[in-house]
């Protein structure tokens, strides 16, 4: 491996957080194009099923993770319980914060139709969302954290799928409207 690629590897290995390309260039003292070449070399070297370590681009920077193929062994060694799955309530709240951020608790509750304090608190404890200011009425606003991007393998928030792709189709909408009206009419009888 060329010297810059080796330095990048050492930096990514040492840093607890993903490192941006700009910070890598600054620490190494090299120009961006040379860094890009080095990153390409790393990408091949630390590809899945190559060395046990894989290069990932998440949360606005580069970082290493262990290869998923070694997941079982890693868990046995670290006696690590599997990260608890997201509950449905947490996943819904996380989607709302992810797409509407910054967004307040009352707004989350309004969209879900249920009080959402408990899943919001849990997401905050899990480090997936954090406070970001307050509304004019003093309610805390939330946004997602860099850890969210890291755990969801997102390079940035722009890597989230377009929210439009989740919108019910015009057909679905029409069907829902028809059924809703029909439900209302049926109940008249």
């Amino acid at each position, binding site marked *: 491996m060329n010297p810059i690629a080796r330095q990048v590897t050492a930096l990514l290995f040492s840093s607890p957080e993903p490192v941006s390309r700009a910070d890598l260039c600054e620490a190494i003292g090299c120009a961006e194009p040379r860094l890009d070449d080095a990153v390409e070399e790393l990408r091949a070297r630390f590809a899945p099923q190559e060395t046990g370590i894989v290069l990932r681009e998440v949360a606005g920077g580069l970082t290493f993770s262990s290869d998923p193929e070694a997941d079982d062994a890693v868990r046995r060694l670290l006696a690590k319980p599997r990260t608890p799955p997201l509950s449905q309530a947490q996943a819904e709240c996380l989607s709302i914060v992810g797409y509407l951020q910054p967004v307040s608790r009352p707004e989350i509750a309004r969209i879900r*139709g249920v*009080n959402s304090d408990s899943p919001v608190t849990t997401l905050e404890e899990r480090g997936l969302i954090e406070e970001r200011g307050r509304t004019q009425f003093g309610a805390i606003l939330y946004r997602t954290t860099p850890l969210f991007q890291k755990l969801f393998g997102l390079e940035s928030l722009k890597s989230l799928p377009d929210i439009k792709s989740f919108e019910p189709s015009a057909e679905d909408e029409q069907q829902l409207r028809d059924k809703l009206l029909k439900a209302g009419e*049926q109940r008249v009888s």
Partner: protein
Amino acid sequence: MTTVEQPWTLDLEVFEGPFDLLVTLILNEDVDLLEVHLAEIVLAYIERLEARGELDLEAATEFLILIAALLELKSRLMLPSDDEEGLGLEPAEAADELLARLLEYKKFRAASEWMHARFDAERPYSYRAAPLPPELRRVAFDAAEQAYEPARLADAMLGLLRTPPVVDTSHMTRITVSLERRLAVVRDLLASRDSFTFDDAVGADSDRMTQAVTLFALLELYKTGELVWRQRETFGPIEIMVPAES
């Protein structure tokens, strides 16, 4: 219209909140809404919350409001629209409003499925858990230069001094009926008479919310064995009695 012989069963475990339930209920092709007993769903839903150890009156109330919205929609459709007085929304508007909320919810529900899938796919990647040594977590005093604006502190302070406006809840008196109060009323009646009717329990000029909450109170007491009830004919009076000693 087909008759559904087999009562339709609803796996309530899979629902998150009333919108989720409603969307499913309304869109389920196999379900003829005429055959779905809303009261049973209410009861099953509340029981589920209770079984989970989270009978949160707030969540239960939200659910009742949603069911009430559906019933209200029905009742408004019964009325010629020009007869409506003092009602905030026209029936079509009421339907549109409910529809808009259901659609919005459905969108985030779909997004949450993506979140689940992504989270699971990413779980096998482990990142190194080697935190920075403590001495690198703060800047050395001698090397420190101004990095923050004092105005940030004043902004934060002013944010903390703001308070929410007092919310006008006068239009919400319907949902301030307390379950505890209705339970007490029913228990008093049970203590003083052998039997009484649902109309006795709600009072002569009760509103719909009082009726709904009283029904909920009766369901609770039925479940705990404090009362039994019967209705001899459809739409006839509901009689409530102290259970016979066994």
